[in-house]
């Protein structure tokens, strides 16, 4: 029975490590023994994390990024954590223009699709793979002033479910981890989506609170969980 949380055989790519969210998740995977490449890494940080540069603007960019991660880690990536969530400022929907809609909706969705597509061949060849997407709960709750971001995040969440359905036969799981609204904006708080405060009394720390969930989903122990969203918001949204 595969129950290990050990990730020493795993090679991970974590996007969005320029912010505490991605950086905390990347460090948590490294704690469990994974070799970890990161995008958006700050100059000073966890020296276990291998910074790689690149973008997800096109499929070719995504392929190149995965190749660089492969080179940096010495092995093909079999764990992808897409934590590059857009930071957003609420604004009236009537003020949103096509350029913003394009950047938020198209930009987020295309990047996620290209990342999935670029990482898939090596996972299929290995018969093993783990995708995780960080999808803040505001997509499930909706958020005034943040419709474009909510649309993009919910799109990611369902892209993950569809990928889980299509790729399960290759030993690939695809899941989402949903932190609270504070993960995307200083201006949207838990009380915007629930009258109740976080059941656990506080919002989460990326490394200490969300890290273990990502580690579990990346591990052998998490092998039978796919297509789900784990809400890791301290008990605010409590979605089904």
């Amino acid at each position: 029975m595969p129950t290990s949380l050990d990730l020493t055989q795993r090679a991970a790519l974590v996007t969005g490590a320029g912010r505490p969210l991605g950086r905390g998740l990347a460090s948590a995977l490294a704690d469990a023994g994974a070799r970890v490449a990161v995008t958006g890494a700050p100059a000073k940080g966890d020296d276990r994390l291998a910074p790689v540069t690149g973008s997800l603007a096109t499929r070719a960019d995504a392929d190149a990024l995965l190749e660089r991660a492969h080179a940096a880690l010495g092995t093909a990536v079999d764990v992808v954590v897409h934590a590059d969530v857009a930071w957003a400022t609420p604004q009236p929907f009537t003020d949103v223009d096509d350029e913003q809609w394009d950047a938020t909706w198209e930009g987020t969705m295309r990047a996620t699709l290209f990342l999935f597509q670029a990482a898939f061949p090596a996972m299929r060849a290995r018969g093993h793979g783990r995708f995780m997407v960080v999808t803040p709960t505001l997509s499930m709750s909706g958020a005034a002033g943040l419709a474009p971001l909510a649309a993009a995040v919910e799109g990611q969440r369902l892209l993950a479910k569809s990928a889980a359905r299509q790729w399960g036969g290759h030993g690939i799981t695809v899941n989402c981890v949903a932190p609270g609204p504070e993960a995307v904006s200083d201006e949207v708080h838990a009380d915007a989506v629930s009258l109740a405060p976080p059941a656990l009394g506080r919002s989460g720390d990326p490394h200490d609170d969300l890290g273990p969930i990502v580690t579990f989903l990346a591990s052998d122990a998490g092998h039978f969980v796919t297509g789900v969203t784990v809400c890791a918001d301290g008990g605010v949204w409590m979605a089904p």
Partner: protein
Amino acid sequence: MSTSAPLEARVAIVTGAGQGVGRGIAHALALRGARVVIAARRAATGEPVADEIRARGGEAVCVVTDVTCRDDVAACVDTTVQRYGGLHVMVHNAFRGGQGHRLEDVDVDIWDQNSRTAVWGSYYCAQLAFPHLRDAGARGRLVLVTSPSGVEGSVNIPLYSPVKAAQRAIAKSLAREWGEHGITVNCIAPVAETPALTQAFSANPVLKERLEARTPLGRVGDAERDIGAVVAFLASDDAGYVTGQTIVCDGGSFTGL
């Protein structure tokens, strides 16, 4: 309190109303007294639906509209307001891009069709209708037509799911944002007899049996009686306290909400 014409004095736009679910919704709204604008990409499909409604004693006009084009949607809204004096109900149903595909090698053109019609179309319809929905106050309604696939994912048409999901997130967000004006924003997630589904059934006859077998009510929905009636309810005064929701109209097949 319902009346026999609960949508009397209401003006509605239905996109993609030239066929299928949109046509059914347009008929259902018109039957209950609404004046309906058939926003169809092609006059060849839209005009006959407007004719059908008028032949049944209703009021309708076709305005050729490509929902992926901001100017088209703006012109449709302007024409509607000029002709009928306002706009109370915007129903975005138009969709293109349902052909099967594999995620690993799907052509970006398929993504574009899905994204442009479902999501950009929702954005344009919502944003351009808003000033008139606000004027309509407690009678302002935005209804987005989504799908059970937007909640459960899809193994055959994987890119369909994220665009349908995005519509739900837009609806929830706008429900929160526009509630102060009395505007309600909801989704319906139908499964109904449409030209696309009929085509899929003829290509794969087992599909219909399988669909009916997993549906508690044992049949595929009728676009006007089963789906249109639910949109008509959402458009009515009776549904004025329902917002941010997705009503699944599929005979009970999907129970995941």
